[in-house]
């Protein structure tokens, strides 16, 4: 097999998450490409949780709909997940609790005494290792491949624990080999050997901030953003910086603004509710032309909504949520790799244009794990924009000068200067102001300063504001998406192409300012355009309508039930909508 889909499920608190970690770490070390997604709920212990890991010999950007092996620690896991199983799939279920195979389940069904074996070895949590061992038997792999990972993971718990876990692994393996006859193994094709990283979008963002020279993060915990602060609090002190957990999101955002004003790259990260609270602060950053980067890891809304579920419903709020009008950039990466590089760019854009930049991800990208090419420091750069260093300050009492922080220059981008700099004294205010930052209410000044600010992004764009996969000049279909649906759209596209359709795919990275001129030709060329997004109102579709129209040719695929959009599902939904006849060949 070139790819395998494996899932483990049970109750929250049973160690499902770390089992998924160990399992995928093993295949990562072997050199496979992985993609993992965790289904969990908003409670600490109890409640069904599962992790699905997809293993492949080539790059993948999404989990998929199918399942080859399901490890179930309880009946609930079977009932919730068995429909995903392939005909030849396996259910390995804990014997405890007398599990039953659903009547309409074609997969193979093997109750295995996971708990019993683990208990015999001294601790019930080791049933996880037993399950990994059992999986090895089915994949015809030596369980010893997990030994170094177990050693690494349990290092701090001492040798005995390590040995017991290795034992549990072995016994799971042996049990299957011994008890299941005939055992039809499903061996994986060998992987390509090359260096890879395996990490979540949030970890990539964390790495990106460090590479960008960011030294301060201010944040308030919230799912699914908290990981970023938890990662950075371990790393930033090594670079003299830190993470401050604030009293709320308003403090987080305004502190980040204060730090940026002080001359340090600083940011905050949150999710929907936190972003709603930051709207006033974002306006302040825009008005005072203070750079600030804000990460929004989208989750299910509205309100507290579905905190542990996937959604894309904050697009308009990110672009238009603050009162009044400011220049602002919204970037939406779609892979872990993009998350890293886009984070660095977010800091560059924020400083170059002296504006708030929102890095918009979604739960699937932020918490899901992906194999990716190793990030390259050389591919990043640090561009801080116009900063005035030490100057000849007017020292003479009569002639104290103010620095023209908001000088009316044609580009709209005036020089910044950091407090502490001689000759740079100026005033900063969220009130309309003149070139030195003094509050001024005159109509003339107002218009000039407003135009100045809005000019900054008049011609703004980024390198590849969208990712494109172009398969034809006049395609039957143009698929447009953003964020983590990329993998699903790519795979659906491939299947459509294999069925003879000509399909192009644009994945938007720059949501605002919207790259309308660049996108237009692709839309004009397409017979039918399907805009794919995980929200109910079609926010990207509305954005496209607003900038470009194409009302007659645009169709929407929306999903807003909290689960990720998967390749097969998407393929079938697209097929059901195709209006154009495919090109006869």
């Amino acid at each position, binding site marked *: 097999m070139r790819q395998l889909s494996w899932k483990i499920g049970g109750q929250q608190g049973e160690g499902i998450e770390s089992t998924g970690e160990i399992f995928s770490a093993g295949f990562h070390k072997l050199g496979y490409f992985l993609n993992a997604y965790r289904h969990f709920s908003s409670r600490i212990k109890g409640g069904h949780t599962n992790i699905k890991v997809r293993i492949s010999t080539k790059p993948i950007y999404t989990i998929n709909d199918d399942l080859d092996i399901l490890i179930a620690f309880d009946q609930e896991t079977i009932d919730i997940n068995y429909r995903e199983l392939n005909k030849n799939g396996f259910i390995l279920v804990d014997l405890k609790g007398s599990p039953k195979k659903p009547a309409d389940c074609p997969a193979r069904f093997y109750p295995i005494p996971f708990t019993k074996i683990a208990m015999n070895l001294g601790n019930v949590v080791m049933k996880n290792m037993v399950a990994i061992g059992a999986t090895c038997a089915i994949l015809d792999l030596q369980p010893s491949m997990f030994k170094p990972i177990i050693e690494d993971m349990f290092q701090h718990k001492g040798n005995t624990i390590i040995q017991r876990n290795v034992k549990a692994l072995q016994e799971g393996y042996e049990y299957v080999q011994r008890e299941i006859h005939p055992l039809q193994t499903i061996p994986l094709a060998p992987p390509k050997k090359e260096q890879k990283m395996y990490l979540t979008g949030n970890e990539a963002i964390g*790495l990106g901030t460090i590479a960008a020279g960011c030294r301060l993060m201010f944040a308030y915990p919230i799912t699914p953003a908290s990981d970023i602060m938890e990662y950075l609090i371990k790393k930033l002190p090594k670079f*003299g910086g830190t993470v401050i957990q*604030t009293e709320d999101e308003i403090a987080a955002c305004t502190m980040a603004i*204060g730090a940026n004003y002080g001359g340090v790259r600083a940011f905050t990260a949150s999710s929907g509710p936190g972003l709603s609270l930051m709207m006033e602060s974002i306006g302040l950053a825009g008005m005072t032309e203070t750079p600030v980067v804000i990460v929004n890891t989208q989750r299910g809304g509205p309100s507290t909504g579905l905190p542990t579920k996937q959604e894309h419903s904050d697009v308009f709020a990110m672009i238009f949520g603050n009162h009044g009008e400011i220049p602002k950039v919204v970037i939406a990466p779609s892979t872990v790799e993009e998350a890293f590089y886009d984070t660095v760019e977010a800091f560059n854009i924020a400083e170059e244009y002296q504006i708030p930049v929102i890095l918009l991800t979604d739960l699937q990208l932020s918490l899901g794990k992906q194999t990716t090419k190793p990030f390259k420091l050389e591919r990043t750069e640090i561009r801080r924009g116009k900063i005035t260093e030490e100057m000849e300050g007017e020292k003479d009492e009569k002639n104290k000068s103010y620095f023209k922080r908001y000088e009316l220059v044609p580009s709209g981008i005036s020089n910044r200067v*950091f407090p502490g700099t001689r000759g740079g004294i100026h005033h900063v*205010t969220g009130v309309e102001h003149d070139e030195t930052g003094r509050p001024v209410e005159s109509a003339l000044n107002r218009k000039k300063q407003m135009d100045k600010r809005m000019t900054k992004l008049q011609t703004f764009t980024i390198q590849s504001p969208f990712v494109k996969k172009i398969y034809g000049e006049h395609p039957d279909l143009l698929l447009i998406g953003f964020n983590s649906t990329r993998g699903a759209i790519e795979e659906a596209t491939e299947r459509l192409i294999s069925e003879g359709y000509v399909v192009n795919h644009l994945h938007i990275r720059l949501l605002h300012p919207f790259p309308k001129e660049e996108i237009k030709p692709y839309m004009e060329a397409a017979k039918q355009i399907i805009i794919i997004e995980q929200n109910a109102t079609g926010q990207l579709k509305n954005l496209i309508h607003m900038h470009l129209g194409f009302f007659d040719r645009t169709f929407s695929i929306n999903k807003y039930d909290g689960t990720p959009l998967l390749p097969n599902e998407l393929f079938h939904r697209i097929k059901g909508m195709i209006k154009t006849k495919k090109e006869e060949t």
Partner: protein
Amino acid sequence: MVTFKDFRNQVKPNWCPGCGDFSVQASIQRAAANLGLTPENLVIVSGIGCSGRISGYIYAYGFHGIHGRSLPIAQGLKMANRDLTVIASGGDGDGFAIGLGHTIHAIRRNMDITYIVMDNQVYGLTKGQTSPRSDSGFITQSTPTGSIDQPISPLEVALASGATFVAQSFSSNVKELTSLIEEGIRHKGFSFINVFSPCVTYNKVNTYQWFKTHLKKVSDIENYHPFDRQMAMKTVMETGGLITGLIYQNKNQLSYQDLLPDYSDQPLTKANLHLTTEEFHQLITEFM
């Protein structure tokens, strides 16, 4: 030598004639001069309100933020550049209504900044509504039959929140206020200074005259020493908070900056942003 004139600019304050805030402004300028600060190393961060305009009236870096958020901005700034002298300032609505949470959390965090509240017991800029500092019974636009909320006690709340420096003054007493601001700036940690700064337009009760007859100096209280938190609390409770001077100081508690593990001694703003290949390699190896 620096003098207070070095901290003057050409802007004419748009406060009403007689507003208490003028003297607060002068006191900050004097304190800065007395401490030998230079304008470019001083930053006045302020909130929104009549009081909030102060950041534009002192020759120094100034950041006039949004209502109630001067303290988070000031703290972010201080984290960025620990060498700056950062003064946060604003009104009683700014600091005790919309910004109250930040005030207490800033006190807990104990960063080395000085916070000056211009307490006029009313909302000036929005034309005379009650503030959390208005006396009960106080008649305003928003309480035509008199306020029925209990006023907040800034000193009690600051002490209860673990403040390491608590002072109170009266804007007429520029000498006392100046020296308290100096001490506040010198204090290694968060300094909370509440200043009775009369609003001559909207507060016809708590006037200059009223304060003159009601305020008492702690230095006039026998055996008062400002290093005893319980005594401070007791005195504040007994006097209804109508005292001025240094109410409490804890010199032993380290500031946030000093407690923070591995926090750069150099201002972060001077740090080299670029990682070495090695540093980067180490970071990504974890995921390989």
